[in-house]
């Protein structure tokens, strides 16, 4: 195993742009060197933001570190890039189970098996889940499985799965809670609908500030943030391939609202939603002001 790490490190030194960083991060993770693994994975993903296997390794590392929220986000990213990634489906099953959502866990495993019926790890996990724990009452039990990305050291299950961490976003992959806006840094105070229509997120799709509410008042910030990280990557790739230089804004005119997306500083992303009735030019100016504010705030954060 040590040789494995050594040879991978050497291979990566020869070709820093190699995708072998994911193998190296995985080897480090298996040896329990989680911080090193995390550094290698994040570094590699900065070069290869669309590398599904890299995000998968990142998710495993977060899972080992006990950060299920980030693990879930990373696996969400994998599935966005490769919807049938079996590792990510099993990972999502693991996280869901740990969050007490047995039904979602079973669904994810069933999807993994639909894609690859011969996946024995998924089969075993599904069988023992159905055998040991009936669907109705599976609040905080461990996911009984041998080969799922279980943490090296057992991590205690979160006591109240969904409502736990307000900042990191426990239920990013579609869990919109009708709880109204959450307490986040008041970066955009003074702006119209500052916590309902303006969202600041980082490059991994994690919410930084602001907020986005659905028409029914549900906080959809995390769902929106996870999806927008993909838009940003796609915009960067498009601009690069068409030799357009860096992208500045994306405006989307939709049936019920206009959206403006813009990069802020290095890696952060701003989303502004305005009513259809506001002219696009005004929406752009509004977004430009919000970008200035966000940029100043990020600099103050040392970002």
């Amino acid at each position, binding site marked *: 195993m040590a040789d494995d790490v050594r040879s991978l490190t050497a291979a990566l030194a020869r070709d820093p742009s190699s*995708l072998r960083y994911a193998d190296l991060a995985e080897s480090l993770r298996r040896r329990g060197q989680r911080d090193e693994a995390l550094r290698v994975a994040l570094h590699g993903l900065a070069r290869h933001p*669309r590398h*599904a296997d890299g995000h998968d390794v990142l998710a495993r590392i977060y899972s080992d570190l006990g950060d299920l929220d980030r693990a879930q986000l990373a696996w969400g990213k994998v599935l966005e890039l*490769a919807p049938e990634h079996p590792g990510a489906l099993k990972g999502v099953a693991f996280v869901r189970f740990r969050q007490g959502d047995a039904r979602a866990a079973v669904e994810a495993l069933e999807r993994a098996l639909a894609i690859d019926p011969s996946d024995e790890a998924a089969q075993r996990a599904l069988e023992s889940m159905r055998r040991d724990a009936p669907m109705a009452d599976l609040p905080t039990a461990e996911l009984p499985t041998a080969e799922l990305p279980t943490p090296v050291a057992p991590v205690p299950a979160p006591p109240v799965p969904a409502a736990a961490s307000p900042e990191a976003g426990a239920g990013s992959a579609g869990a919109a809670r009708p709880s109204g806006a959450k307490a986040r840094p008041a970066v955009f105070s003074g702006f119209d609908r500052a916590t309902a229509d303006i969202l600041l997120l980082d490059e991994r799709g994690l919410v930084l500030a602001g907020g986005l509410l659905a028409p029914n008042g549900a906080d959809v910030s995390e769902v929106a943030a996870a999806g927008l990280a993909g838009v940003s990557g796609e915009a960067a790739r498009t601009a690069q391939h068409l030799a357009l230089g860096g992208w500045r804004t994306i405006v989307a005119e939709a049936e019920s609202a206009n959206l403006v997306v813009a990069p802020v500083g290095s890696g952060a992303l701003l989303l502004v939603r305005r009513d259809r009735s506001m002219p696009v030019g005004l929406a752009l100016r509004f977004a430009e002001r919000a970008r200035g504010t966000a940029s100043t705030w990020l600099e103050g954060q040392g970002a």
Partner: protein
Amino acid sequence: MTTTVVEPWAEQPLLRYVTESSARLVVLMTPAGQVLAQHGWARAVDLMAASALGAAIVAASGALAQQIGERGFGALFHAGERHGIHLASCATPRGALIVLTVFGKETSIGLVDLFYDEFAAALRRAAPAEQLREPVLAEDFEADLNRSLSTLFQR
């Protein structure tokens, strides 16, 4: 995801292509349908049969091209309900190679074809020329062959 690489020079271009195109399975093979490298959800597909058929389709469409006075076609694809395939042949110093790409709804034939061009160029740069080969098998291989075939046919 599994990766199989028979000829190591193909690995980096292949991984890059899979990542860029978001393809589910990419198989690089000879015109005779022999796999040189593969990356993706290979367990869901009978790789040997898929390669033989892919090579056959490319060969057949090439022959058809000649019939109508074309030198060859660039690439061909089929779109299905859930999966599409992209098949193309490219000339390299290693000889002509065939690439079979299986992709799903998360990408499009346009993206696959776009990044295929980059892949083909990378293959042309990376492929070594065909070389004379040193003897591979020991001269007394026949005892092994007899034993293997006897086991195979349970005699």
